[in-house]
């Protein structure tokens, strides 16, 4: 791979990094909704259980973040760019 191709790959990867990060940060700050009137629906219990939307959001965020990481690792399994030793 020549330098120009490498720079193209880098550009694409940076876009991808920023996309994943922005999505994660947006989800993360959705937690603030819990404390606003717009997010008052989160305080309600789900069905007949004592599990509230807020608690479900907390657990869902952790699970979704781990899934996002798995997806990120999966689509970046490029041996050519990941084999360097330091």
């Amino acid at each position, binding site marked *: 791979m020549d*330098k120009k191709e*490498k*720079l193209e*790959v*880098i550009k694409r*990867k*940076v876009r991808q*990094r*920023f996309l*994943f*990060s922005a999505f*994660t*940060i947006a989800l*993360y*700050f959705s*937690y*603030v909704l*819990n*404390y*606003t009137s717009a997010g008052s629906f*989160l*305080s309600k*219990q789900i069905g007949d*259980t*004592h*599990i*509230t939307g*807020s*608690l479900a959001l*907390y*657990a869902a*965020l*952790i*699970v979704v*973040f*781990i899934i*996002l*990481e*798995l997806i*990120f*690792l999966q689509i*970046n399994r490029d041996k050519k*760019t*990941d*084999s*360097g*030793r*330091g």
Partner: protein
Amino acid sequence: MNFVTAIPARIFVLSVVGLLVTQDAGAAGAIEGEVERQPLNPVAITMFLIFVAATLVISYWASKRTKSSKDFYTAGGEISGLQNGTAIAGDFMSAASFLGITGLIYLGGFDGLVLAIGAFSAWPIMLFLLAKRVRNMGKFTFVDVVSMRLEKSGIRLVAISSTLIVVILYLIAQMVGAGKLIELLFGLPYESAVISVSVLVLAYVTFGGMLATTWVQIIKAVLLMIGVTITAFLVMKEAGFSMDALLAGAADNHPRGEAILSPGVLFKDPVQIATIQVSMLFGILGLPHILMRLFTVPTMQEAKKSAFYASLFMGYFYLMLVILGFGTAMLLYNNPDFFTSDGKLIGGNNMAAIHLASAVGGDFLTGFMSAVSFATILAVVAGLTVSGAAAISHDLYAEMICNGKPDPKKELMLTRLTTVVIGVIAVILGILFQNENVAFIAAMPMVVAASVNFPILFLSLFWPGLTTRGAIVGALVGLASSVILIVVGPQVWVSVLGFEKALFPYNYPALFTLPLALLVCWVMSVTDKSDRAQVDKDNYQKLLIRSEYGPDSGELEVARH
């Protein structure tokens, strides 16, 4: 008789929020107020001694393999992704997380989880944004990364200062917390507890360097997760393995009833939540002892795996804390064994997790969890000590004073000497701050890391326009604004200095100081027309391929002067 309820001596323990990563007005749930020092706990001490013996054997083994500075700082770069991820989890899942967050849930239910989501969410960003580039651009520390493309003496000095501020403040918070916690859990006098922590950490770090530190952190992480899993299992057994029954039981027994299942018991202001979230997320991304761990693995792929495994373990841990937290509400509030005569939880709210272990697992589980809590402190302090030693011996001595060409033997000797000095300083500061309100000291490292380290690290990795002048002025503004806003905030202005009302309403000002630092970096960089500014910008392009493809990618040598 439950050992926790035995009362041999009364002591007055001031706030030990230093142990926590927390927090705000009254919600801290620290080891605070009038509490009782516990009697010597033979189960906890026996288990802890087994842990110490095992880790000392590992340190001896590690010392045989620690022959160079690279061995000392990064364990020779030969730790696997899984091991490193476990060690990162061990470094980060501190007593603050385990005891502090459980205590906060005990106190205020759902609101206690804001710190948990803050602590966890940094890890995906670490993987997406930083892990690979930091690994590729640095050698031993994050200071290497930020100085790679900029004029190294100025930016190194700023980054070293910031590293030392973060490490020392973090260390004070840990040592004071350790002293108080061990006093409570083991019945050891405060000074003995602080000295024990320091002596053990020195034994690990001075001889075994990062290799021993890594294994101490791995063992501790595994023990902590075993302990948390067993406790959570026993709590769920009490609740008939029904999450609904657990939450119903918690709401039935908690004085605030079903309100604890929703937000609003401890916090109401969304801006306050945002300040905590920004400080936690970006603070973690700028913690030097955490970033340093990315250099202990042999390849970029392993660095990314490290961040993923760390997330996985921490995600599991923070989900288990929901069970533990609401378990404390379900099982402790209606049990008088865990309360003092005036109705306070024995040892303060931070003891809720230990009392829960006692309630569901008796003396054995209590002893185990107490020993794990002690081990937790050792693991965190060891990581901080390595990071502080590297800042002095590598960043300052080897790279600045010796211009990157130190005598290897002298550097290693200086590293070990610095480790001992940091250990002694930790003891002195731990004893000096024994009776001080250290809440603000616990908040400061996160805010400083978020407002100084993160902006210069992020911009140096991703913004071609950053110049040395922009980075230095931005970092200094980030540092000054963080310190000033913390001082005029509630924790110092009201709690320490005694004024009636704080001049700034939030304890964690990173929501304001981080954007300010980024803005100043940008303004000072775009207006910088110096020759050096052009060199800095050219260096970014020259290092771009290395940042993605690694140091072996044959990138052009960057200009230094």
